[in-house]
């Protein structure tokens, strides 16, 4: 088989211990956080950019798939080897190469864990804002490839807003350096932006130069409970109307609160249908003023209960609740379709009403939470894989949701990417023309189609 030949060649080229075909490794690199499983032919652990280019050159020669992989925490199946081939892990490329305090930049290898970068820069009074809930265990490479968002996106934006320059290896084995270290730069096409969010389908990121900010002096955390989803959504609008843009503005529905209660034993008010978790940061004086404006907005929408975290530990407790939601939904049903749809902020009440409608129309269980501040709500349809009828209803519900979201002027994926999970729906948003242009770009980078095949584009359209 060609794969065996490619593997044999790599075994010769690479230092010992870089490639494994043992079933122990093939099983453990067959999945990501979606739970989809496909076994790769081999797993490769490059330690340098040079090794990455060698791997890509051999894969091109034999035309076998290369699947870049960070920590495998993706929620759209991005690092799942659907077409087998080589899973190439960045777990051994974990150096923070430079933190430049004058230029406010960090230069890192792709396998650096996001939370570790946070700690390293914060120790120097600096700040890397993107903070996906998975930050303690996902990688910068994965964040860039998925354009990961995070809780602080409302005020600070997403990963794309912090990537200044990238080095990446292309399938033919050449290395490209895109972007600049400076704030400004307009030389030709913006290849950095094309690489961000490319889900490992264009090239293999080997180094990233990231923008940093000064670390905010202090922060406040406020929790507010509401008796209805709509009043919570209106409170969000109310905060923005007061010209306050908090760092974080999270929405959590009743189903999610129940799961958090199961998982952590935390207690919530009986009649709460929704919780808003709000955080703002900055200079002490500024934060105080925004806190009082926020509380005013919450009170005017009849919040049941407003609570300000007295200290860091109290705030951490609230955030822990937020972080455990996604996995703890398993208390309702073993499987979930986790949709990260996003609509313009002012359409949130409409989205939430539409989700309720869809859930009852298709008779499916549903729990929602997420980044209300930027219109990105994680709608989870919960089901049991063994129940075929339910699976079918969930699929229809997802499609209906996608259609509503696009009608509301939103997007079908705010931060998790398309991967495997949403490739059948991509046409709803970008149409056949959009798919066609993207495929041309893909061809220019990856003429043999070896980079992470089977992702993003619907099967019927992929030749």
């Amino acid at each position, binding site marked *: 088989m060609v794969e065996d030949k490619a593997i044999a060649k790599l075994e010769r080229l690479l230092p010992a211990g870089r490639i494994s075909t*043992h*079933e*122990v*490794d093939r*099983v*453990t*690199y*067959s*999945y*990501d*956080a*979606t*739970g989809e499983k496909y076994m790769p032919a081999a*797993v490769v*652990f490059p330690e340098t950019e040079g090794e990455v280019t060698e791997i890509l050159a051999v894969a091109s020669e034999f035309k076998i798939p290369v699947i870049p992989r960070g*920590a*495998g*925490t993706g929620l759209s199946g991005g690092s799942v080897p659907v077409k087998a081939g080589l899973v190439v*892990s960045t*777990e*051994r490329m*974990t150096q923070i190469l430079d933190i430049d305090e004058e230029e406010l930049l960090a230069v890192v290898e792709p396998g650096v864990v996001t*939370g570790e970068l946070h700690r390293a820069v914060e120790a120097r009074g600096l700040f890397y804002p993107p903070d996906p809930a*998975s930050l*303690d*265990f*996902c990688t910068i490479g994965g964040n860039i490839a998925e354009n990961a968002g995070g809780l602080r996106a409302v005020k600070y934006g997403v990963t794309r807003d912090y990537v200044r320059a990238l080095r990446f290896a292309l399938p033919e084995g050449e290395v490209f350096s895109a972007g600049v270290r400076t704030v400004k730069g307009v030389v030709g096409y913006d290849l950095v932006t094309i690489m961000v969010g490319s889900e490992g389908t264009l090239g293999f990121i080997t180094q990233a130069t990231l923008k940093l900010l000064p670390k905010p002096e202090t922060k406040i955390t406020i929790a507010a409970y509401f008796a209805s989803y709509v009043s919570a959504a209106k409170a969000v609008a109310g905060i923005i109307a007061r010209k306050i843009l908090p760092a974080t503005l999270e929405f959590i529905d009743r189903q999610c609160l129940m799961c958090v209660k*199961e*998982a952590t034993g935390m207690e919530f008010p009986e009649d709460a249908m929704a919780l808003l978790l709000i955080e703002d940061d900055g200079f002490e004086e500024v934060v105080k003023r925004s806190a009082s404006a926020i509380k005013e907005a919450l009170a005017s929408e009849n919040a049941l209960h407003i609570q300000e975290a007295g200290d860091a530990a109290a705030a951490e407790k609230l955030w822990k609740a937020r*972080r*455990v939601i*996604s*996995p*703890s939904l*398993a208390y309702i049903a*073993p499987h979930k379709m986790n949709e990260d749809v996003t609509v313009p902020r002012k359409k949130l009440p409409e989205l939430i009403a539409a989700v309720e409608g869809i859930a009852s129309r298709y008779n499916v269980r549903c729990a929602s939470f997420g980044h209300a501040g930027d219109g990105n709500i994680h709608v989870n349809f919960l089901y049991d894989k063994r129940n075929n009828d339910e699976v079918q209803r969930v699929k229809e519900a997802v499609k209906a949701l996608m259609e509503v979201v696009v009608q509301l002027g939103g997007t079908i994926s705010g931060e998790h990417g398309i991967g495997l999970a949403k490739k059948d729906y991509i046409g709803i948003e970008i149409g056949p023309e959009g798919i066609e242009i993207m495929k041309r770009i893909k061809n220019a980078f990856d003429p043999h189609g070896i980079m992470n095949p089977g992702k993003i584009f619907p099967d019927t359209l992929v030749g």
Partner: protein
Amino acid sequence: MEHLANAAHNQSSVISRIKDLVEKQLNLCVSCGTCRKSCTVLPRLRAEYATARGRLALVDAFIKGEISYSRRLREAFEQCTLCGFCTEACPNHVDPEGVLSISRALVIKPGIIEKGVSMLLSHRKGLNLTALAARLALMLLPFAEKWKKIPSFIPLVGGRIVPAVKMPPQELRQKTYQGYNPRGPRVLFFPGCFVDYAFHNQYLSALKALAWICSEIHTPRNLPCCGLPSLEMGDAGAAHRQASVISRTALELNVDAVVVICGSCGSMFRKVYPLLDPAFERFSQKVKDISELLIEHRNLLRGREKKWGRRIKVCYHHCCHLKRGMGVYSEPEELIQLNPEVEYEELDFPDRCCGFGGTMYVKYASLADEIVSDKVEDIVKHNPDYLALGCPGCLMHIQGALLSKGCTTRCIHPVELIA
């Protein structure tokens, strides 16, 4: 013959129970990867097989018949310190550490050596024999009186500094001791192999402290090992037999509590026994770490604390099995601070795993040493007179590493600071 048939039956029913339990837990795992965040071995091994999620996927594939026994599979399980950080991290009520420890019975086929060792650990005579052999071997080695350096040509453990093994002196061989508190609890004290055959100071201090608060202290001399090493080597049947003897003895004596001085025996008793067999639940509920019992009766310790005649600086290391396995973390720290001569200082990372992990220490010495070097660095930074810790396995590993580095800090059990 009948005996053998019974053993085989017992083995297969233990295995099927373990399988059921593991399958239930596997259903709860959503493969989110949260357990990657604080795994002790992942930063060193840097591959998914070294994470709880990866190992769970392996057990799953193994149960479904998709993969079979192999050296790599075995290593994947042995290269885990059972530190429990994954269980602490999991947002989903999966107990990966528990699953990984009992799954060894499924994915590891014990070889002839493991079977032999398990057999020795299952009987008192076997334990005595093992200790005697170790004593003779170690007697040949020079070094300090209490610690011996194993020559580097010995496979696996060469270069290690280990405690001198000794048979317990006469004063420690009684089956019962009377306490001074007639209204106090009647307890069974289980010293565990290390304390029985090497750390006699811990044994003496424990008996002394227990005598202040108990009416009777039972120390039956016929008990086997707690069963953890057998389980780690994949011999669940042996572990179950050891558990049966210990729990039967404790229940027959009808004691109020079973007191341990080793966090690993303790978490085996408290957490793992009920996983092996729900019938051990009643026994498990009686188990207490010595620090828990002493702190419950702290008023009886006041004024009796050991006099050192000087101020001593003490740091505390949270052993994984004591903290995350048994859920005991505040009592040992309180106990240490009961002694007014103690100047207590917290380590920077007091609960970071030392890398001992039983099989890990024996079979993957360089990995265990890499992990302990972070611990040593933290200790050296604080440079206490004593490092207190509640598990003799970790004590051996950390003390060995400190001695190799020429550090003067000595490792002791918290109870040695008091009695």
